[in-house]
Structure formats: C-alpha cells, structure tokens
C-alpha cells in the first residue's frame, strides 16, 4: 500500500544481512546526516587486485538510510574499488525501487556518500560525491 515502505525496505531495516564492523579492515569511513543525526560507518576488505572481498555497515537511522546501506553493502562485495567510485544516485534509487523527495534522498544516499569518501580516501563526505 505504501511505495516508500516497500516490503524490501522494511525487511532490510529489520533484518539487515550486513550490519556489523570488519576488524581488521582495509578501508573504513563514517559520517552523519547532520539534519537528522543518521549515522553510517562502512568497513571494507579488499584483495591485491582491488576487489572488495567483504563489507559491513554499522550505525543508526531511519528505515530508508539503514535499508539502503544494507542493500549497498551487499551489492558491492565482488566489485572493484574502481567500479565503486562510479556508483551514483540512480544506482541506489534503482535498488530501493522508490522515488524520494529531497529530504529522504539525503537519508538514502548517506551510505553511498560514506562509501565513496572511504574509497577515495577523503577527509570528509560531501554531497557532490553522489550527485
């Protein structure tokens, strides 16, 4: 009955498959959505060829931010770091299968922002990373 709260979103929010923290890890980054205090941390392991061999997310926030983090982390295992650098907004929206207004878009894109800041080795996760 509700587009925004499709079954898959509620399911990934309530039972995330990739929640946690890798230790040791090769790449780690964390950031907040300052508007609502959503928090996402992503840890990655990579092999010599730059392929992501494992990934986890941790944090707290709304169903949209946490479900998109779980879906994103699940989807990047097996991808190369170079591929991850080219992921964009549409990639997330396709996975979620919903349309979002500007406020909730920030929630949905937080995990991608954090992931890209991590793989680029940046000090800060800026919005321009996911435009």
């Amino acid at each position, binding site marked *: 009955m509700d587009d925004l*709260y499709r079954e898959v979103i509620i399911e990934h929010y309530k039972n995330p498959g990739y929640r946690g923290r890798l230790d040791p890890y090769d790449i780690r980054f964390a950031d907040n959505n300052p*508007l*609502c*205090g959503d928090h996402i941390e992503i840890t990655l392991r990579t092999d010599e060829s730059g392929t992501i061999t494992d990934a986890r997310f941790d944090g*707290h*926030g*709304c*169903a*949209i931010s946490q479900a998109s983090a779980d879906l994103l982390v699940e989807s990047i295992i097996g991808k190369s770091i170079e591929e991850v650098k080219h992921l964009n907004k549409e990639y997330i929206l396709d996975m979620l299968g919903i349309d979002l207004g500007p406020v909730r878009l920030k*929630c949905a894109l937080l995990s991608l922002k954090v992931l890209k800041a991590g793989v680029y080795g940046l000090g800060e996760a800026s919005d321009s990373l996911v435009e």
Partner: protein
Amino acid sequence: MCTCLLIDILTMLNINEIRNDFPIFQREVKPGVPLVYLDSTATSQKPLAVIEAMNDFYRRSNANIHRGVHTLAEEATELYEQSRVRIARFINASAAHQIIYTRNTTESINLVAYSWGRAHLKAGDLVILTEMEHHSNLVPWHILQAERGIELEFIPVTDDGLLDLEAYKTLLARSPKLVSFAHMSNVLGTINPAAEIIRLAHAAGAVTVVDAAQSVPHFKVDVQALEADFLAFSAHKMCGPTGIGVLYGKTALLESMPPFLGGGDMIKEVKLRSFRPNSLPYKFEAGTPAIAEAVGFGAAVDYLTSVGMDAIAAHEHEITEYALERLEEVPGVRVFGPSAQHKGGVTAFTLDGVHPHDVAQILDRDGVAVRAGHHCAQPLHEKFGIPASSRASFYLYNTKAEIDLLVNGIYKVKEMFG
C-alpha cells in the same frame, strides 16, 4: 474529523471559530486528507488578519521608513513604529525603545553575545547556560568561548526534564557574569521558573538572557515582573511572519552596549572616518528592516490579545494533558519531559524499533504534520541517549480530535513495522 463540538468547555475558546481564522486549514494535504498541523513549535500557522495586514501594507502603504517625508514614507514609518508599541505592551515593556527588531530569536541572542558579550566578557568569565538549550542559545556562546576564552557551565536537566536548581545555586557561587536560558524547552516542553532563575542570578551579580521563543507565543510573559535583562523571541512562532523577531532589553544595558551591525539607520552622524551611533532602538537596527513583517507582527500581537493569552495557555494545557494520556497508553512510546503540570504544548517521543523519521513520514500520509530529528537540541538528545525524536506540538487551533488522529497514526506505524 468530527467538527460538531469543538468548543473547549474549560476555556470557552471557540475552536471552530479560531480554525476559521486560519486560511491554511481550508486546504487538504492531499485530496481528501485534511491538515492536522502539530508542528507549531517550529513555526505557527498565520491568521487571515496577519496575512491581510501585510498584504494591505504592500498594496497601500509600501515605502521605506524613517528619512522620507512623503505621505507613504510617513505612513510606513508610523505602521512600523505602531507595531513596536503594541509588541512592547504585549510583554509589558515599560518603553517601546526597549523593543529591538531583529530577524528572529537566533539573531537576538547573537546580538547580545556580540555586543554585550564582547564589551563585558573576558577570558575566564563564566557564562551559565542549561543542558536543554536550543542551538541558538549554545553556538553564539561557543563562538565567544573560542574568541575570548570565556567559560561555559550548564545547569543539568533531571531525568524528568526539569532544571536542577540546587546545582544552579552551586554554579552561582562561582560568580557568573551571565545566565542565559530557555523559558520553555522546545523539546521537553518544560516551563522553567524564569523569575526564580533571574532573581538568583541577580543576587549573584549576573546579567540574564531569556530565550522566550517558546514562551511569549504561548502564555503571558511580563518582562517587568520577571525582571529580565534581555529577552528574545520570534514573530513566526506566534502567528506572525518569518523574518522578524525581537530583542527586549533593559534601557541602561542597551544604552551601554556598542552597536551590533553598522550601516544606514543606526547612525546619528557619519564622517568619512567616524560615526556617532543613533539612539535606541535604532542603534541596533542597521539597514532597511523587515517593514511589512513588522506590520504583520503587530497584527499577530493584536490577534493573540483578542483571543486572550490566558485562554490560549489553558487550552494548550488541556490538549497537552490529553496528548500525554493518549501517548502513554501506546506500548513502545516513550514521552520525554515533565508531567503536564510543568509543561507547555510540546510532546517529544520515541517509538521502540522505529526511527522518528519513519514515524513522521508515515503520519504525513494521514495529513498529520509532526517534526522528526534533534529539533536543534542535539546535546539534550545525547543526554537522554537518543539520536532523535518525533515531536508533536500544539497551539490555540489544535483539537483533541487531532490528538486522536496522531495516536491512530502511531498505531499504524507500529503495524507496518510490527
């Protein structure tokens, strides 16, 4: 929603009539879904009288104020100044020149920090704030702390959302220069004992700032009875327009302060290399102000006065009591803040297992507008160990039927996430 019996028996506010004063309640949020506006703490809705006053100003009287001699300039100046007089009366200030127009509460507090703070505070001086402050009464002092090396201490908030006055008394022994606090919390709803806080501060030799953003709109505030040194509030939270607020100050304090912003209107005389500041209140009103908004502000104060602040406060109290009762019956809901006795019309709550954003989003489908987030009070949320909360807040136009819709909506959220 049932509109048959909306006369509040206790306070005799005719809620139907009041709702008719606000054009926005005629709209539907989506086709067939009426607006249930429970976000007046963020900004209130505007009655027709305010909208019309601003419209009339632009249609009939628009001109820049002060320096002009033509008819419109005189009319505009007169309207602008009449509003100041009405606002002064509304908070029982003894003189209109004690009402400084600013953009909002935030700018009013910044004015005190920049002007009074820079003139009077030096390294090591103590400023007392509280743990329940809005960011607008934290960050200006953080800035001064970085610039001047002042010290900040905070009156603790107890688990039931009240200020710990014993701890405050202990802090006062350290001879603070300033005590700045929210009259009413925008999250907990706590109405703080302002007169007592000020009396104790004065006894310790401190100047006081009252953040009255949530008090002046909701109950009678008398600056002389409080003996407040400074008091700040915003028009947009009290049926008026955005873009205008007030800093009230005691005359001697305001006179002793250097100007805040420099430019037109705030001067008596300008030479190439110097200026002489204007007298009060103009010294603090640089540049062309929000003139139409001042006119709207005056109309808002008239509107609230005509309804009656005591009736508004009594109505909100009744709605709040009912909201607390209904919310607390919902399993998994945790309401923050004190009991209705110490509380204005604000209920911040969490629902187990569901993020406040999701609560707000799902309520919105039924037209119920609540806010989700940290409500510009991040340290307070940290204190209670939560990243965010949902907040329903009430004003003169809200009804018990709307509280029922809120609670029904929360049950729907539980079902979806169940």
